[in-house]
Each structure stands twice: as structure tokens, then as C-alpha cells.
């Protein structure tokens, strides 16, 4: 440890001895670090958006169902608890939000066309904060209460059905006895979503209206719960599970929407691979810089060994030099990334390619997100790999014979 101050001083001075080479290498590391973090922020933003959108469409963070419902989402597989019983168990459990719904497959028919849709009977007040529909941007109006008699459909579906606000449509599904349950509704609003698929798929009616139409009393088909972090749903899961027995199925969102769940883990792995790939490109420059730095001071290394410095200290000196170079480069790269990502956090319009992106469940506005975890991950990976890359030149430097090194021209 007593050698540390002298090694740090030597490493720092040697770093700036050939300042042009150091600046070139610093630029490469900074740009590499910036690219790692910037791309990670874009990807993270895209994934977050996809998951947040995906979760807000249906799954929430945790769901409660009849055990058969996920395999057969029909009205016969309802939650066995009434709304009053759900209220007793979960009203004071401390969730960020929760709501019960009726969700069944249905057919919607206008005077011109018919389409299959997912019918959602909701309490619009309970779902306002987490719904993917912005109630204030609905053409016409959104549902106002659980017993609202109107229907709100997506703008795209309205186009397909050739209908509009004020016109009537018919919704048809099955009741628990497998009899046709249908009813006419007036279209009161057309919603807009980030993705056209959503606009094409969902039809919203009041929860009580749905219960009446489907003749299911005050039961529902699913209950959704929100915690405060979609990445850590265990506390929410445990709270929900603690209040029910085995006759109910409690599922995390990753189980309900396996595509989104897989996407999250694939993206986490992708980010690590991305960081490593960029570093590998950088490492050639780093190793070359260190090899040159060692090569041009063989005599001085020989001198230090002759004066009594141990080979381990020479090894340490070269590694410290490499770590300093990386640390300064990363610091600049981190700052650059912060300066470029922050102004873009309000959103980047990618509507030019949005059609293609929608295939992956991404919206037309990308919101880059600078996560501290990602910055730390990229910095730590670069420092660890940089350490490993510098071992070889450092080891070579420490193995010089002083008498040979000192006479090198």
C-alpha cells in the first residue's frame, strides 16, 4: 500500500507524457462509453414503454383469476369472489391501484361490418390512472361510470366497422349457460392508442352494464393489481396471494404476458452483450496504447527495477495507468451520455418507422431512459474487462530483466 501514491503519480505522469496518444484513446473510450449508455437508454426506454403499455393494456403487475381462465378466457371461468368480498380483502392492502373487470371475447357488429374484439367491462374511475387510454383525448367521451350504457371503441375499429360516435352497434358474447348474450350500444367515444392494434382489439363498456348483459351478477373475470415497480412485483404478488386460497390463481404479469416477460429478460441480456461488444472494439486500442506505452519506456522500467522497485509494483503501475485512462474516458462518456439523453427524455418521434416497430409492441414515440443501473453496469463491465486486457502488457513489463532493459536503446 505504501507504493500506491508513487505508482499513482507515475501512472498519471506517464499517461500525459504522450498526450496526443492519450487524448485519442480517451476520445475512443468516451465515445464508446457514450454509445453504450445512449443505446442502452434508447433500448431501455423502448422496452420500458413496451412493458408499461403492455401492462396498462391488460395485465397490471399481478392478476387474480379463476384457475382455468388463462387457458379458457370464457365467462364460465369467473373469479369466485363477489365484488364486495374483493373490496373487503383488498381495499386497505396498500396497492398503488387495483380494479376488477369483466373481460370476455365478443363480436361487435355495425350496420355494415362485424369483427371479433375483446370486450372489457370496467369501472372507468378505478382504471383512469393506469389505463392505456387517455380519457381526455377520446373523440366524444369516455365511459363515466360502471353502469354507463355507452360503448367506447378504438378509432381504427370504428373505421373498420364504418361507424362513428352517436351510431349504434351490437355486442354479442355468451352467458354462463352458453346462451347468446347480446345488446345494442350507442358509440359514445373513440379512443386513440399508441398502437393501432389496441384500437382494433378492445371495446370498453361499463362493468355493471357488462355484468347485466352477461348475466353474471356482481362477479368478474379478473382483478388487476399495481405495485410501484414492474420489475419487482413480488411484494404485490405476496399480498394478493395471502388473501386467497388455492381456488384462485394469482399470476405475475410475466406469466400472464409471456411475450413481454421474455422481452424484458432478453433485453437485459442484450444490453450486457452490447456493452461487451463495444468494449471488445475498444480493447484493441487500449491494449495497443499500453503496449506502446510500455515499449517506449523499457529503459525506465529497467531503471526502476534496478533501483529496487519490485516487479509487482511495475505490474501495478501499468494497470493503474490503464484504469486511469478508462476511468477518465468513462467519466467523459457518462457526462456526454447524460447531456444527450436528458434532453431526449421527453420523447423522440420515430413515426417514420413506427409501423415496423409496432410489430414488436413499441409505440411511435421513443422515450430514452437513463437508468443508473445501466450506467453502473457499463462502467463496471468496461473497468473489469479493461483490467483483464491490461494484464498482458503489464505482465510483460514486470518480467523485464533490469540489466537488459536498462541498456535498451
Amino acid at each position: 500500500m505504501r507504493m500506491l501514491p508513487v505508482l499513482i503519480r507515475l501512472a498519471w505522469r506517464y499517461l500525459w507524457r504522450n498526450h496526443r496518444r492519450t487524448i485519442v484513446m480517451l476520445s475512443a473510450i468516451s465515445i464508446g462509453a457514450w454509445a453504450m449508455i445512449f443505446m442502452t437508454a434508447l433500448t431501455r426506454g423502448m422496452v420500458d414503454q413496451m412493458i408499461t403499455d403492455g401492462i396498462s393494456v391488460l395485465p397490471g403487475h399481478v392478476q387474480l383469476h379463476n384457475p382455468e381462465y388463462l387457458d379458457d378466457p370464457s365467462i364460465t371461468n369467473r373469479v369466485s369472489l363477489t365484488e364486495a368480498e374483493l373490496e373487503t380483502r383488498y381495499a386497505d392492502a396498500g396497492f398503488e391501484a387495483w380494479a376488477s373487470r369483466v373481460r370476455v371475447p365478443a363480436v361487435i357488429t355495425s350496420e355494415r361490418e362485424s369483427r371479433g374484439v375483446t370486450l372489457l367491462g370496467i369501472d372507468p374511475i378505478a382504471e383512469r390512472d393506469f389505463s392505456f387510454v387517455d380519457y381526455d383525448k377520446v373523440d366524444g367521451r369516455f365511459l363515466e361510470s360502471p353502469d354507463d350504457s355507452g360503448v367506447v371503441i378504438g378509432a381504427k375499429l370504428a373505421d373498420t366497422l364504418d361507424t362513428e360516435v352517436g351510431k349504434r352497434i351490437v355486442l354479442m358474447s355468451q352467458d354462463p349457460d352458453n346462451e347468446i348474450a347480446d345488446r345494442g350500444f350507442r358509440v359514445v367515444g373513440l379512443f386513440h392508442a399508441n398502437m393501432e392494434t389496441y384500437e382494433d382489439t378492445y371495446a370498453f363498456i361499463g362493468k355493471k352494464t357488462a355484468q347485466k348483459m352477461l348475466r353474471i351478477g356482481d362477479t368478474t373475470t379478473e382483478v388487476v393489481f399495481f405495485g410501484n415497480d414492474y420489475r419487482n412485483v413480488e411484494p404485490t404478488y405476496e399480498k394478493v396471494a395471502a388473501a386467497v386460497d388455492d381456488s384462485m390463481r394469482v399470476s405475475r404479469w410475466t406469466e400472464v404476458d409471456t411475450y413481454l416477460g421474455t422481452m424484458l429478460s432478453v433485453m437485459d441480456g442484450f444490453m450486457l452483450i452490447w456493452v461487451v461488444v463495444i468494449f471488445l472494439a475498444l480493447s484493441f486500442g487500449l491494449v495497443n496504447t499500453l503496449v506502446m506505452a510500455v515499449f517506449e519506456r523499457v529503459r525506465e522500467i529497467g531503471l526502476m527495477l534496478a533501483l529496487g522497485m519490485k516487479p509487482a509494483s511495475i505490474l501495478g503501475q501499468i494497470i493503474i495507468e490503464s484504469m486511469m485512462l478508462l476511468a477518465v474516458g468513462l467519466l467523459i462518456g457518462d457526462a456526454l451520455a447524460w447531456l444527450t439523453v436528458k434532453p431526449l427524455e421527453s420523447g423522440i418521434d420515430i413515426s417514420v418507422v413506427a409501423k415496423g416497430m409496432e410489430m414488436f409492441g413499441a409505440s411511435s414515440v421513443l422515450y430514452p431512459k437513463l437508468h443508473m443501473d445501466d450506467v453502473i453496469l457499463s462502467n463496471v463491465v468496461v473497468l473489469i474487462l479493461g483490467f483483464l486486457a491490461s494484464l498482458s502488457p503489464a505482465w510483460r513489463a514486470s518480467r523485464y530483466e533490469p540489466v537488459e532493459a536498462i541498456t535498451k536503446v
Partner: protein
Amino acid sequence: MTAVRCVDICKTYRQGDQDIKALDHLSIDIEKGDFVCLMSPSGGGKTTLLNAIGGLDIPDSGEVWVAEQRIDQMSKGQLADLRLANVGFVFQAYNLIPVLTAQENVEFVMQVQGVPAKERRSKSLAILEEVGLRDLEDRRPAEMSGGQQQRVAVARAIVSRPELVLADEPTANLDSRTSDELMELFTELNKNHSTTFVIATHDQRVQRYAKRLVRMRDGRIVDDIEQDAA
């Protein structure tokens, strides 16, 4: 008391197809406080002998003892410790660390030894004063003349008062006045601190300061005489 003892040491280098005997069954004892001048034509073996005594080069056979320790069987780390604690080096080509100032160069060995900063500073300034470089302490080697650099190298070699100073052609790049000043400094240290000096040189002027002249040829000692130093 013996400061250095070499017993029947041999060292052969291979140059192309030829084996060159740099040291050929050489034995020598150097007492503590001695001032020895090794003289030989080029290739006579004096630098190889200095390197063997300093643990920079290991002989092929024979024994080398420094400060009562046999060094030819030591590991690299042990040799580094021995050099750090007991030996000061002055090389022909100054050999300063270019990224450090004069004072930092002088402090370098003490820093590796773990001498506290305050003590390092006072000792280094005192020794720079002694070698006449008190005003150049903040200069880097590239900003100093050859003579000044050599004096810094000498200051570095003697600042921690090693028992043994090994100097390889220390005056080779100096003018006669600077050479004399340097040798007088060595003589003074030898007298005042009983530091043992072993100097390899061609320089006839340096011989005047030595108490003992050892002439070598083809890796062997051909003449070993005591004399009254200047």
C-alpha cells in the same frame, strides 16, 4: 568487514555463434569503506562485475556476497529488496525518470523504501543542496544539462546513505570540472560516512581518487593495487 565478496564467478554471454566470457573465474573481496576503481578496456568485464555485485545480473557460477548475504541465489523480489536497502546505483547515461522532477527523482528510492514524506523532502533538498542543484529541484530531466542530470542521479544514489555505491562510468558524459566535483563528492561521502564505492571507469582522472585500483582484462583481474587517494 567485507562489503562485497565474489568467489570464482563466471559469466558467459552468447553473441551470434560466439561465447564471450565476460567474467572468468573472478574472485575479489572489497572491504567496507573501500573506494575501488575497476579499470579495463571495453569488454573487459567491469560492467558485468558491477551488475553481478548489484544483483542486476546473475553469474553462471560462483558466489556473490553483499552485506553478508549470498545474493546469486536470491529471487527477483529479494534482490530488489537488497538493492533498495543497501545499494546505490549511478549509471553512465544518467538514467533519471523523465516524468519526475529532480527532487522527485531523488525522493524516488526513499518513497519506495517507505520514508515519510516530510523526511523525504528535507533529505532530498539537503542532498540537492550538497550537489549544487538546490534551485533546480522542480526541473524535469529534459530541462537540465547532462552534468546536472548526472548530479541528480548521484544525489538519488546516495540520499538514503546506502552502504555500497556502484557507479558505471559516472563521468563519461561530464566535462572535467564537473567530473572532479563529482569525484570529490564521492570521496567526501566515502570519508564521512564510510560508504563503499565501486566505480567502473575508463577515465584516468577518476583513478586518482581511488584507494584501490583493480585492472581487468577478458573477465579476469590482472592487477589489484592499493594507492593513496587524491
